[in-house]
């Protein structure tokens, strides 16, 4: 039986104080994953004594995009990411990922911080932020540390966050120069679908060539990772030298290299290959390259 005492924090200081003093505390944000697990008596939570509601903590909210750097508070909801005009203009792939999550009701409550800390293998917030090279600010009473998002997840639902830490915000540098992005996702249906495969492509281009590129897997691998071989294939190539289908094949090989052959491989291999091909074609088209 999962039983807990609910604690409500109204400031970041209060959150850190509680985390420092009490043991067996589980943080509650939007609750769209956690409330399901608690309702279903997930044995993972049998040992908790306290549930700490942080949804009222103003310091953990808000989106700030400067000319060069940006930050997203951990309690920012997916609905806010979807409708924020600055995100729409400067980082549309983050909005696209947020919009692909759950339903209107879920997006109104679910937070980006919760999506990252819960770290489901299918979590949709990782790939756009890893493509940006984002870092997480993890704060405890003793101070804050930064962790590269790429290094945050050890295994599905297992991250490097410590019991006395809370995710405060996500920080990143904005892409420079001329850049294009694409977010791709396949689920079994549109609304409320769990990602079967998702990925983000973010490319900086110059003179009809790719200067910098990040293609990052979403649900394709146990922990979200950059497709290093695809990135190597695409980097420094001129548009004329790029074969989108070849990029797709390289990504599919790389995914199978990480996951091994599974029951789902005959479906996922060609699907991922096409998703990467589509993302690369989108990039070339948006960049105005007509072959």
């Amino acid at each position, binding site marked *: 039986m999962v039983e807990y005492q609910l604690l409500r924090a109204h400031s970041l200081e209060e959150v850190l104080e509680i985390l420092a003093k009490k043991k067996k505390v589980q943080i509650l944000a939007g609750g769209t994953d956690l409330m399901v697990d608690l309702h279903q008596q997930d044995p993972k939570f049998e040992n908790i004594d306290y549930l700490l509601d942080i949804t009222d903590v103003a310091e953990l909210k808000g989106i700030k995009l400067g000319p060069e750097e940006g930050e997203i508070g951990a309690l920012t909801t997916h609905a806010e990411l979807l409708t924020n005009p600055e995100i729409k203009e400067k980082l549309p792939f983050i909005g696209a990922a947020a919009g692909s999550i759950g339903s*209107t009701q879920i997006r109104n409550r679910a937070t980006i911080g919760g999506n990252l800390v819960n770290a489901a293998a299918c979590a949709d917030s990782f790939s756009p932020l890893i493509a940006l090279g984002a870092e997480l600010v993890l704060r405890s009473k003793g101070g804050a540390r930064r962790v590269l998002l790429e290094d945050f997840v050890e295994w599905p639902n297992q991250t490097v966050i410590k019991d006395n830490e809370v995710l405060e915000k996500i920080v990143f540098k904005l892409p420079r120069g001329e850049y294009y992005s694409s977010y791709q996702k396949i689920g079994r249906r549109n609304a409320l679908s769990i990602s079967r495969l998702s990925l983000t492509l973010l490319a900086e281009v110059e003179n009809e060539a790719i200067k910098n590129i990040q293609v990052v897997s979403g649900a394709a691998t146990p922990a979200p990772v950059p497709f290093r071989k695809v990135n190597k294939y695409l980097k420094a190539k001129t548009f004329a030298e790029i074969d989108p289908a070849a990029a797709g094949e390289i990504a599919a090989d790389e995914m199978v290299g990480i996951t091994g052959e599974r029951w789902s491989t005959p479906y996922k291999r060609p699907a991922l290959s096409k998703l990467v091909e589509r993302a690369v074609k989108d990039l070339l088209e948006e960049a105005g390259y007509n072959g």
Partner: protein
Amino acid sequence: MAKLDVEITVNGDKYKLEVGSQERLLDTLRDELKLTGTKEGCSVGECGACTVIVDDQAVNSCLVLTAQVDGSEIITVEGLESKSGLHPLQIAFIEKQAIQCGFCTPGMLMSALALLNTNSNPTKEEIKTALEGNLCRCTGYQQIIDAVEMAAEEWGV
């Protein structure tokens, strides 16, 4: 376990309550306030039958603890009808026969109301997005979408 003090406004009425740590907003509405229009379907945020409006946003009341919405304004399906009669959304749902068994209807109405409160002239796509978290196993959705369109037109007048 210690109880928690909560003040919420539901359909315009203020309530001071003592709630348990594990009490969901859905439980408070149905069991404490006897507002049984809000339905419990899947209990895991998939079906939308328990949708209510919290501070202008449609949420699944099965995924929110009552103590988390302390100080909030909540609207349930019981808040639609006024002294002047049924709400335009209710009239449209009846007119378009957007109801069969009726179990999803309170949630559908709340999602539609949250949409129309912020967007009085929605496109069909916007209506579908607003209702994507509400499952209906009877109507096939078309009548529901027609009803929301009708309500938007009537309401706009």
